[in-house]
């Protein structure tokens, strides 16, 4: 009931603001009351843990040795940054992210174009395309794990493999990346589809009259106008891939040199119970994510801005 009641008066009330100020104030108070629980919950569940993580990352805090807790400044950060395993894991994560997102982008674009151009059963096709994204991440990871297994899976049988793909680095990376592509391409396609809707048909018609080929129209009209959507899609997917955890965890817990930063974070926090060191890894992962977002917005954002305004 509140949505209708609060939203409606806005357009009507404005010209008669003075006369209705009492009511407006009451409404604002009501609005504040309605928002307050959500705001308080948000602060409790996001701000508090973030601050707590920052504080923990500056301490020696191992749950197994509570009496040894003390403030250690930036020691945890230097321990992380000096450890070869951190840099290896950053490497593993970036390899997976770059390859997976590239494929997701190309395939997602093709899927989006196909969905955009479809004349029949559009809604049904979009729903079908979204199925992989709708499957619970752990469930899809398990089904792929079985699919890749030498004894249980159809993939090794189909390819006539003699050894288990998940028992060596190349096979494991391939399996992880293909699983990620399968799972997340629909999401990419959906975001790009929203961008495609921004491109008006008239521009295409006009270009066609001027003799532009389909290829030219795609690169000169569709892509530039879609840039904001492309930026958002790539940024979302990249940030997600950089935090990759579930597939690797289910496949083999980071064996064969596929440990990601999130896996490292998990084992430090939950297996080793080292909250200080683990929090430092969390903060550094956050910094990495922030850097990537910054690069995207600086590098892409400037180019995308005019498109964004026009839309």
């Amino acid at each position: 009931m509140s949505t209708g009641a609060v939203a409606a008066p806005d357009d009507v009330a404005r010209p008669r603001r003075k006369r209705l100020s009492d009511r407006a104030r009451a409404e604002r108070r009501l609005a504040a009351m309605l928002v307050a629980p959500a705001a308080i919950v948000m602060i409790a569940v996001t701000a508090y843990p973030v601050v707590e993580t920052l504080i923990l990352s500056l301490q020696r805090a191992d749950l197994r040795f509570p009496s040894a807790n003390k403030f250690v400044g930036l020691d945890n950060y230097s321990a992380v940054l000096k450890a070869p395993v951190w840099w290896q894991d950053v490497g593993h994560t970036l390899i997976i992210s770059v390859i997976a997102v590239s494929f997701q982008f190309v395939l997602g674009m093709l899927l989006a174009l196909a969905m955009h151009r479809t004349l029949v059963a559009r809604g049904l096709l979009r729903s079908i395309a979204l199925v992989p994204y709708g499957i619970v991440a752990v469930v899809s990871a398990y089904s792929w794990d079985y699919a890749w297994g030498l004894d249980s899976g159809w993939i090794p049988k189909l390819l006539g493999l003699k050894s288990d793909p998940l028992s060596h680095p190349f096979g494991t990376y391939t399996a992880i990346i293909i699983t990620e592509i399968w799972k997340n391409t629909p999401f990419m396609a959906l975001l790009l589809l929203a961008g495609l809707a921004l491109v008006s048909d008239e521009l295409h018609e006009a270009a066609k009259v001027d003799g532009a080929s389909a290829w030219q129209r795609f690169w000169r009209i569709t892509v530039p106008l879609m840039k904001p959507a492309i930026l958002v899609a790539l940024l979302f997917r990249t940030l997600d891939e950089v935090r990759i955890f579930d597939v690797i965890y289910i496949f083999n817990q980071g064996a064969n040199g596929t440990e990601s930063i999130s896996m490292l974070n998990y084992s430090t926090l939950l297996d080793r119970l080292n909250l200080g060191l683990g929090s430092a890894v969390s903060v550094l992962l956050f910094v990495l994510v922030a850097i990537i977002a910054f690069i995207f917005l600086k590098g892409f954002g400037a180019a995308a801005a005019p498109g964004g305004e026009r839309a």
Partner: protein
Amino acid sequence: MPTRQDCVRVRRTIITVAAVLVGALLAGCGSSSSKGPVTLNWYVYPEPSGSFAYAASTCSKDSGGKYNIVMNLLSTSSDQQRVSEVRRLAAGDPSIDILAMDVDWTAEYATAKWIRPWPAALAAQVTRGDLPGPVATATWDGKLYAAPLNSNTEILWYRKDLLADIHQPPPTTWNQMIDDAAELAKMGKPHYIEEQGAQYEGLTVWFNSLVDSDGGGILTKSNQIIVGPSTEVAASIMHRLATSPAADPSLNVTEESQSETAFEHGTAAFQINYPFVWAAAHKDTPAIGKEMGYALFPRVNPSIAPKVSIGGYNLGVSAFSKHPQLAFDAVRCMIQPQFQRRDAIKGGLAPVLGNIYSEPAFIKAYPFSALIKAQLENYGLRPQTPVYADVTLAIQLALSPTSSIDPTSVVSTLRHEIKEALSSEALL
């Protein structure tokens, strides 16, 4: 447009909803009733045969209304069980009374003061008649911190028909077993040796069993690093197997259940695994079960009897339990011989009481009971240290994948990694 009355109604609704929520929360918090038997929460893995549930309900009934044991089931993976338990213990959760603890966790839980040591008189009672290996796993710093419930040890399983083909007796050493496998491979017969080579706890068990069986060790009792020549011997055997025809192509992803499946599918000639595979093979693939033989864990050094790292579970009493005395009583009840016997015959769990091994009913279910008993008497232990989670992770990282082990550098790698693990201040 909302009228003033609407607003009042909204406000009233909000207040009502809030009151209901707060009321529900308060009710949830103060739920313990003062009458009736005390609820003892037992955090335990889901034992599939229902033997634990039977012990819990029988003991609750027999307590004469003093306590009622409620099972809180954890994951089937021991790593996950530990994670579930320790995060509650670290937060001082008073709703846990009894803990099923993997034999490796004693030092960690005891050092962090998450579990209560058993009073000396009780300790003597609950370990009376127990085999020495299980008791050693439950002891830390000279005190008993948990009551041994069941044990486990890996032995060698082999295919009698295949060994007959090459006219060989069951192998007694690792090198002989790998040679036998190579010979079977040459004849085009099933020849894999099923071991647990995935990067997980099973890899540590394999490695530690080999090191101990060569007379070496990884840590001393006071947690000094040993990691001597025996670690090189052990790593060399693992590497030799991984790069020989005996290696299952899936070795790097193989855990206990994959070993069992591969053996049942008939691709393997040998298997190092726990006794559960015996009943499983007879049930799943009787043709393979019929040809299944068993022998002691192969030797590393021909002149030293094997020392296999034992597994199993002990029962500890949480330091945060509000009813420690009742919890001790309940544990004493649940480890009684009749329950251990039932666990063993119905659930395939090796008992810790030595006498059970000579009972006819047990020998019928466990024709290899003498081997198990021998290995539990001449036992090996994984490193006992409060930072075991770190140490085992360091070992797994240094040895996985087994085909890439460099036997010449592995000792220094292991020494370095384990040193980092013991400090508990470095990233692993």
